[in-house]
């Protein structure tokens, strides 16, 4: 079982969380051409190794998180709040 250390709630079993998907996709401007949108929506780098991905603590504080995890060993390197301002706030309050 993966264990993810939520910045609010502490270390919890993965079953409390929902997997979102790739956290490194940059979506193009709304009026960008179809090809850029096609690439962002449908194509994946499908990284073998360390990647940033999104998880939601859906059975906890419901925050969206950015998790850096290895897709081969499942080791988790870092967890932070997906919304940058909140992450800054949490760090300030430490």
């Amino acid at each position, binding site marked *: 079982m*993966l264990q993810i250390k939520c910045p609010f709630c502490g270390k919890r079993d993965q*079953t409390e969380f929902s997997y979102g*998907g790739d956290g490194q996709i940059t979506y193009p401007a709304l009026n960008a051409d179809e090809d850029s949108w096609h690439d962002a*929506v*449908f*194509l994946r780098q*499908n990284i*073998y190794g360390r990647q940033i*991905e999104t998880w939601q603590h859906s059975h906890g504080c419901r925050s969206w998180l950015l998790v850096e995890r290895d897709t081969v060993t*499942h080791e988790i390197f870092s967890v932070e709040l997906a919304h940058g301002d909140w992450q800054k706030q949490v760090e300030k309050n430490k």
Partner: protein
Amino acid sequence: MTRFSAWEVIKNGFTNQSGWSRQWRDPQPKSNYDIVVIGGGLHGLATAYYLAKNFNLKNIAVVEKGWIGGGNAGRNTTIVRSNYMLKGNREFYEDSLKMWENLSHELNYNVMFSQRSHITLYHTPGALDSAARRYNIMLQTGSDAEIWSRAKLKKEIPHLNYANDARFPIHGALVQKRAGTARHDAVAWGYARAADKLGVDIIQKCEVTAINRKAGKIASIGTSRGKITARKIALAVAGNTSRLWQLADLGNLPIESHKLQAFVTEPLKPLLDHVIVFGVGGAHFYISQSDKGGLVFGGDIDWYKSYAQKGNLHIVQDVSESALSLLPCLGRVKLLRHWSGVVDMSMDGSFFMCKTPLDNLYLNAGWNYGGFKASPASGWYFADLIANDRPNDIIKDHNLERFKTGHHIDESGAGPDPKLHG
């Protein structure tokens, strides 16, 4: 190589089983082939076999980084069915099922294909409507389908949980009688042996480490056992397709690698005669009983992207809960093993079999949950694509451009999120 027959079995009974030979050779890789198939799984082996058989081609190699039967070929729940609905999938999987029906004869290898019925339970009147739609489409496109009432189901499979206060009471089922299971190792060994007999070199422990391009083509591949040049290269490496695609410097694919687990219990006396599928309210569970007596079952993928060939415990809990809600009699049965394979989950839940931006590279990928049952037709049509350098009508919609043009083949209607296409 000895051809298998009743006579050989009797003869070897009298000669201390000394008359059997190796199933396939263990050749050194040559430096040049006409066609190299990368990936020695069921699809790669079947492709090589049909290239040699249907098109009389020689000088073919299959390169496999591990050993035959060590990847997804041996990590599935062995279910064969064709109850797909959408054009493109419907004809393809129906063809595959027809090929399964004759596969043991075709390969001179008993693949233990058992047409024991595939039974998809439904639990609400709405689900019955949906089942009826699929049933009608199947009947009208040359397949078989039946709808079983609760009473009929109770008679055929008495030990399911028919309690009226079950969280998801059983209303009935959509049944495909020609569907069933096969012995997965036998399929791998059968194709390997038959392909070898037609002169195909099966090269194990040979990992592709480089793909060298020159002028819109692949000039050569680097492997752990030396450099190989070939006129045509075919990729059949589901699970690792993105890695090889990127090795060829081709960018990103509409694929994510996920892991799918399978489970087997201790052997029991005969209990289940069919393949039973339970899928409602977020649960997903399928179960059958092997000839050895073990209950073979599986559920959802592990939800998060992974290349690890090891399963995680939350799915063990998930499928155990499903098992008990469907078959309460399994409460004290011990789980013997569970294992996991890495699958290509695609953006619409359907596969890719097409030409690529490189002239002499062909792609076979994105099998999601459906790889095992597809093996014969996959090999057949992929061989046809490689030999004739154009897709057959039946697979022409399974290309990489379909997301650009809006022609998704999305059976579950889940949209572009690979983890939802279970």
